[in-house]
């Protein structure tokens, strides 16, 4: 018996020694199967007293009420005949039943896209690294994930080499199938290793996939019914969407395909699984996830034409007495539910000073003055945080800061706005007006997307005083408002996503009529010459591969109906702002500002291979945003009043390593402009900004007194060594601020004007305090409050006094103290 012990012990270990199994469930609990031959994978999930559920599928005993109707292979049922039966699962004295109905449906007709494309996808043949790459591989091009089965059929049955920039077929056309001698088809000999294959052996000769492919060739390589457009798969569902499992635990995924005609089928064994981070959790070909170390990773699921994902969370041991945390709003409900699931305890609520600093920086980019900090810290009003948020949202500093933030995303810059400072200023003022009036974000987007004439919002369409190219313009708008990066599909079908080159150019065509006449942005009618014949010109956008004119087509592939003399972008703007992607991308972008990472991160990189950490939260936020008139301020209030936002940055033992589940606040570098303003505020010495486009060498002007870094409308106009060193983006592209420190910053802290020269200024905060006769204690407290929103601790104060006491020159010592404060990480980070 001894050799059995380890096996018996495993479930117990996994379950935790103290936990007891409470119930057993089967998934799915009811199933309809369409005729003999159809299959269904089942899962047995046990719920334990520690609140954790575990996959016990492989340890469960499975039986059928009517063995004549179906056959079991483990937990996978194959239908033999029509009728109803019960599937019973038994484990550790508990049982659960699933009701199965098998209809007498005729066998499903053959579909090349589904049956052959499915094998090519599952076996990884059409992956981006293999034949699904841009140019294909080894002379064979397949569409990624069998997205274009007709193209695949042509390449397999006729052969030839795909070319990226033309539809012309290169090379000799040698079919990958051999009808006369099916077994000698390259389609079979290469993946089985009979012939040399760069991709290695993909399946065995005795495998089911080999049999299906061989039979297809023997049948004369029919194409069969069209799948994707008619009764094809429209979506995949992976269950569970978030799978939690302990280290070394296993969990099987269940994949269900939803078809256009409404029926569903089990696809668990017809998909390709891949883990984004296999050192955290790996997945095998059958969809069995194995946990290796604490963390979270996406498990990607691919099949013909579809990509889906689930989250695998490798969780720590169950936590006895997990604390009850009361949610402030729906954000907390969802964030804390996941934390509970992942055995992560949220940090305590932040201290008042910590919250004050964070919320002021996040909503206004401005540190509060010491008097306000004292006032807030002293207040006993239980609603003081919410009241502060309301105050900040109504403040002029909010308008300044969010104008600055959106000037980044919307790219206010001379070079991006027609090479005219006046135009970039006008565009900046347009953004400011939208922020000040809290204009609904969908209206802002519609105006920016469809602007015509000389309006400020048109200026972003004329970088370098030329109409931007339609592909670039479209890709930027989609990235800003949909959070998606389509750029790869400009030259070829996207290798990882379901974006085709045709879709890309269909979307680009919405911008294809744009024309600049003088300073006016217009959409040239396509039914009027407007003198084009004088130079034999045409207003049309050509597909780079087919060289044919492309017409506006939405991202979902449907053609847009746009009158010949209308503005196509207006139609696109209507469609985009009504699409679920719009609200989703907007809330994710905002979320990213407040939590240092998006629910999808980077915030503008939504893709199936980069799934959201909290899909339901993202959907709820988007729905709330949409349902409340795309109100940015309301969304910000919802976020900042959540307990999740207000958690301390100090981790506990359970959440120290967590950077994705918002169990504690994550420190991040303060943006360059905000940091410079903070240094100026703390020291009491404002910055001056020279107007210059030549690196500061020949300033032609200077920003007026009182100008803060976040007020600067255009980075190209105002040179600043500090801002360059600390990562101010040029806005040549949509900025991505890394916030990573570098050596130049360290040197600037030591010797740069921003930190050093300020401290000796006659009108500085320190100089004024010294002049007023302030004590050392008073000065320490004032600067701590001004910079860190807290008073120095007793130990800090004692140490400061000791250090200062060692200095012969008190003023110099105090300057060193201030330098140390504003050079500290605590100051330079928002936490």
């Amino acid at each position, binding site marked *: 018996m001894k050799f059995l012990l380890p096996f018996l012990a495993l479930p117990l270990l996994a379950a935790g020694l103290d936990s007891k199994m409470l119930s057993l469930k089967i998934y799915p609990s009811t199933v309809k199967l369409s005729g003999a031959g159809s299959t269904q994978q089942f899962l047995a999930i046990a719920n334990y007293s520690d609140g954790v559920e575990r996959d016990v599928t492989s340890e469960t005993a499975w039986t059928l009420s009517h063995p004549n109707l179906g056959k079991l292979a483990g937990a996978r049922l194959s239908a033999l005949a029509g009728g109803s039966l019960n599937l019973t699962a038994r484990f550790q004295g508990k049982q659960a039943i699933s009701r199965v109905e098998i209809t007498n449906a005729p066998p499903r007709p053959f579909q090349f896209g589904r049956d052959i494309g499915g094998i090519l996808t599952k076996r990884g043949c059409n992956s981006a690294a293999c034949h699904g790459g841009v140019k294909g591989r080894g002379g064979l091009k397949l569409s990624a994930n069998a997205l274009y089965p007709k193209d695949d059929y042509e390449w397999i049955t006729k052969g030839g080499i795909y070319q990226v920039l033309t539809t012309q077929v290169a090379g000799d056309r040698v079919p990958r199938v051999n009808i006369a001698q099916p077994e000698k088809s390259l389609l079979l000999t290469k993946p089985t290793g009979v012939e040399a294959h760069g991709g290695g052996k993909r399946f065995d000769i005795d495998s089911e996939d080999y049999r299906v492919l061989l039979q297809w060739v023997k049948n004369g390589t029919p194409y069969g019914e069209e799948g994707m457009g008619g009764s094809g798969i429209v979506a995949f569902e992976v269950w569970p969407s978030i799978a939690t499992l302990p280290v070394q635990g296993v969990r099987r995924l269940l994949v269900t395909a939803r078809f256009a005609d409404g029926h569903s089928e089990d696809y668990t064994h017809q998909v390709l699984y891949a883990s984004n981070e296999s050192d955290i959790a790996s997945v095998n070909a059958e969809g069995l996830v194995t946990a290796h170390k604490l963390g979270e990773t996406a498990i990607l699921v691919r099949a013909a034409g579809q990509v889906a994902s689930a989250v695998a969370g490798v969780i720590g041991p169950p936590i006895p007495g997990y604390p009850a945390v009361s949610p402030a709003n729906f954000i907390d409900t969802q964030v804390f539910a996941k934390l509970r699931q992942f055995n992560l305890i949220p940090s305590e609520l932040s201290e008042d000073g910590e919250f004050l600093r964070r919320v002021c920086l996040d909503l206004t980019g401005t540190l509060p003055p010491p008097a306000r900090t004292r006032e807030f810290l002293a207040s006993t009003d239980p609603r003081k945080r919410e009241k502060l948020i309301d105050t900040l949202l109504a403040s002029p500093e909010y308008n300044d800061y969010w104008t600055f933030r959106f000037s980044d995303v919307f790219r206010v810059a001379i070079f991006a706005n027609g090479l005219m400072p006046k135009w970039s200023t006008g565009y900046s003022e347009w953004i400011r007006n939208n922020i000040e009036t809290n204009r609904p974000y969908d209206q802002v987007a519609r105006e920016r997307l469809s602007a015509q004439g000389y309006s400020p919002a048109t200026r972003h369409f004329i970088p370098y005083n030329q109409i931007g190219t339609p592909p670039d313009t479209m890709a930027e708008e989609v990235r800003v408002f949909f959070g998606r990066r389509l750029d790869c599909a400009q030259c070829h079908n996207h290798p990882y996503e379901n974006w085709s080159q045709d879709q890309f150019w269909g979307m680009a065509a919405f911008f294809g009529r744009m024309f600049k006449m003088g300073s006016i942005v217009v959409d040239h*009618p396509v039914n009027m010459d407007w003198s084009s014949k004088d130079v034999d010109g045409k207003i049309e956008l050509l597909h780079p591969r087919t060289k044919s004119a492309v017409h506006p087509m939405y991202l979902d592939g449907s053609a847009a109906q746009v009158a010949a003399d209308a*503005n196509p972008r207006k139609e696109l703007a209507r469609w985009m702002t009504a699409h679920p992607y719009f609200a989703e991308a907007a809330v994710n972008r905002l979320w990213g500002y407040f939590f240092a990472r998006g629910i999808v991160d980077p915030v503008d990189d939504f893709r199936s291979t980069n799934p959201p950490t909290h899909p339901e939260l993202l959907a709820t936020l988007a729905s709330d945003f949409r349902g409340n008139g795309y109100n940015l301020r309301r969304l910000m209030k919802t976020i900042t009043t959540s307990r999740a936002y207000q958690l301390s940055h100090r981790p506990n033992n359970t959440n120290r390593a967590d950077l994705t589940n918002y169990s504690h606040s994550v420190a991040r570098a303060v943006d360059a402009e905000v940091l410079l303003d903070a240094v100026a505020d703390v020291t009491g010495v404002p910055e001056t900004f020279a107007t210059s486009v030549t690196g500061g060498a020949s300033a032609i002007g200077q920003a007026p007194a009182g100008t803060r870094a976040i007020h600067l409308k255009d980075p190209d106009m105002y040179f600043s060594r500090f801002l360059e060193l600390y990562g101010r983006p040029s806005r040549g592209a949509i900025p991505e601020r890394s916030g990573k420190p570098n050596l130049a910053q360290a040197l600037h802290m030591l010797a740069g004007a921003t930190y050093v020269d300020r401290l000796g200024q006659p009108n500085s905060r320190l100089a004024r305090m010294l002049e007023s006769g302030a004590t050392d204690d008073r000065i320490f407290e004032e600067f701590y409050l001004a910079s860190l929103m807290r008073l120095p601790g007793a130990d800090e104060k004692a140490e400061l006094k000791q250090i200062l006491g060692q200095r012969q020159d008190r003023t110099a010592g105090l300057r060193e103290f201030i330098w140390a404060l504003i050079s500290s990480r605590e100051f330079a980070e928002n936490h």
Partner: protein
Amino acid sequence: MRVLWPILLLASVTVVSAQQPPPRPADPKLLSIHPFAGQAGTSFTVTVRGTGIKTATSVQSDLEASVEAVDQEAPPAPGSRRTPSDLVRLKITSAPDAKPGRHNLRLITPGGISNALPIHLTPHAVVSEPDGIHETPETAIPVPSLPTTFTGRITAKGESDFFVFEAHEGQTITFSAASGLPGIGSAGSNANGFDPSLALYELGGSWFDPARIRRVAFNDEPLWFFGRHQEPHLVHRFQKTGKYYLRLEAFSGQGGPDYSYRLDFFPRETQQDRPPADPSGERGFSRLLSTDRLNQLAERGGKPRDRKSVETYNPGPVQLPAIIEGAIAEPGQSQRAHFQIDGPRDIAIEIQTPSADPPLFNPVVRLLDSRGEEVATNILVGRGACTGAMSKSIQAKVIVPIRNPGAYTVEVRDLTADLGDPSFRYRLMIRQQIPHLGNIGIDEDHINLFPGDAKTTRVTFDREEDFRGAVAITVESLPPGVQALPSADYEPDKDAPLTAGKRERFNPRTERAVIAFTADPTAPPTTKPAMARVVVRPIVDGKPGAVAASKQIPIMVVPQP
């Protein structure tokens, strides 16, 4: 002999060098006047900054003005390459009946006459900026009453001036600024041009700073577009009674001794003046297409004024010649007029935009034949020289030769599909072509001649609608010893236009003539400028026509030093 050449050459150079006359006085040049505004009917003092003016003796202006004092700026800091400018203080006296507006002013020096800069006369009191810095609300300049005009100066980079005033709920105030220097992007400007911008603030404070002022309105200028005002005009209706602040600054934070401004506060809404339309302007959307236009053009072509007035129509059927008036009040709207052409005719289509004009309203006019085919448009098309990309622009006039009689339609719309407004009004004139002189340009602002010297000036003129007559240019009222001679200068070759054969529909043929002004070696120096008059006339059928253009140019003969 060869060896002697260098010696001879050296000797001749030495002789020439020894005989070189003393340097001639520099041409006087005015850079700025501060302040450049004063109340009509009063006396006030201004300081002119410039070069070569420290010897100024008198002033030429329709205002009474005299030189009070001459000074020079303090020497620049060591190492600076800046040359100190001359400062001339003038006393200006305007008669009680002096007309408010711009009055040009020139200085007369032994070196000749200067360029002109304007003095603005206002109907109401002018207040000078008090001494000191006014770049914070605490140091704001109080506005005593409305209307008021302030004069001030942004003396340093980054400086701004605050003004404080009271406004009542429902009150509308117009703030209008003008600079004494051309704005950036306007003719004659450079990166240091002074383009003021205005921002209006209210008290209100913020949680962070109780003393913070809140911006309630901002205006740089209504539009930044070539040919338009560069100067801000802000009309604001106040929502509540209280204290407000107005800040004036240079757009790019420039400043210096020439950054003089005028700031008007009007207690009502006022419209900013449109730039004055050139009465002979042919190619601007703002010129007036009057019912007498056929006679005006005939006269400019040297023909008698014997044409009938043009009928004015609404869109619909019209008889040529016709003026069609309408408005693109709604987005995407187009309006059409229909007419019949009985035989081959050369027609001209002209467009005027009486209210909103480009870049707000951008009228596209298409001439369609009976099949709806586009015969002509007012869109000039070409290919960019660098990229070859097609470029287009709308024009205020197009000429079209029609060879096929029949029914024609003219259609008007806005360039955009999404914009329309009742102010998008247009006047469209369709008429037979009338050869005439179009725009005429006469260079030179002033001429200073030393005895024995010569200077040339160019006269450019457009031949509109195939005007083939000669052009006579005469100069009248020259000072003694000065002649104006027909001459020619070098004209570099130009590449043929990319749209050769099409371009003439939109752009007239432009020619130029050169006049040489010569002063005899014995010409007597002048102490006052002579106002020479350059006159341009068409000559048709052997007869000179009416004056098509004229310009007065002050000329002085400057004594040799």
